[in-house]
């Protein structure tokens, strides 16, 4: 899931951050926040796709990192630089081996294994970073913005 290029997520502006218990019934809350944040940032056209990618990454945390519904939290932070959108997903589960994360070729039609394919198709870069204080996992997804959604100057809604 690692692409060659690693754009810095520093010096970006917070759009929204949401924290929920890592449970299947809370993914709708994450979707609600991310959708509204992308609309508020003028990125309506990307909202449905990015919401799907974020939801898939959150599902993987619930199902694989935590291994089912837990009381552990899941934090999704959405931010942007002038020309790209960042999604950072933080959990407090045991460390994940990034090499164990791999989807399947969609040409092989069977149920399951589609989540990482969606994420890779929608986002431009997806990688694990070192989590703060070495606790849990931190996944960062980056989406380059089409030219008409890029920011010039200071304001953060186009």
């Amino acid at each position, binding site marked *: 899931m690692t692409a060659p290029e690693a754009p810095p997520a520093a010096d970006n502006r917070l759009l929204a951050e949401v924290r929920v218990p890592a449970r*299947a*019934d809370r*993914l*709708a809350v994450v*979707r609600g926040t991310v959708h509204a944040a992308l609309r508020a940032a003028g990125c309506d056209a990307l909202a*449905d*796709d990015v*919401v*799907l990618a974020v*939801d*898939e990454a959150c*599902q993987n945390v*619930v*199902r694989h990192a935590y291994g089912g519904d837990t009381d552990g939290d899941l934090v999704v932070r959405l931010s942007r630089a002038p020309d790209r959108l960042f999604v950072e997903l933080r959990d407090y589960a045991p460390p994940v081996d990034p090499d164990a994360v791999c989807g399947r070729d*969609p*040409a092989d*039609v*069977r*149920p*399951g294994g*589609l*989540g990482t*394919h*969606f994420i890779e*198709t*929608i986002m431009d870069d997806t990688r694990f970073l070192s989590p703060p204080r070495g606790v849990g996992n931190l996944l960062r997804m980056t989406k380059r913005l089409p030219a008409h959604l890029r920011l010039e100057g200071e304001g953060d809604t186009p």
Partner: protein
Amino acid sequence: MTVDIDDTGGVPVARIKGEVDLKTSPRVRKALLDVLKKRDTLIVDLSNVDYIDSSGVASLVEAYQTARKAGGQVSLAAVSQPALRVLQLARLDQVLPIRDSIESASAEIAE
């Protein structure tokens, strides 16, 4: 999210409404597979699906494959824009039969 099964005559129709996600897709899966225990064809009406994720798509694929194994068919009908986008991302728009309306899906199966 609700799934209504209409099995009153002709090909059975499952109408899915709302958001199909990790929480709700097990109910979609069960409802579709339950129909396929008794029937070998099924039309899934996706016109009121506001959202569907990979677990929802997996439920559709599983129903489709179950029907095929039994020599039957599952078709998707009147697929909403958000659901179609996700089926395209999954490249399933080339695999599962997708029809404009319940009527055309049902006419085709009746042939």
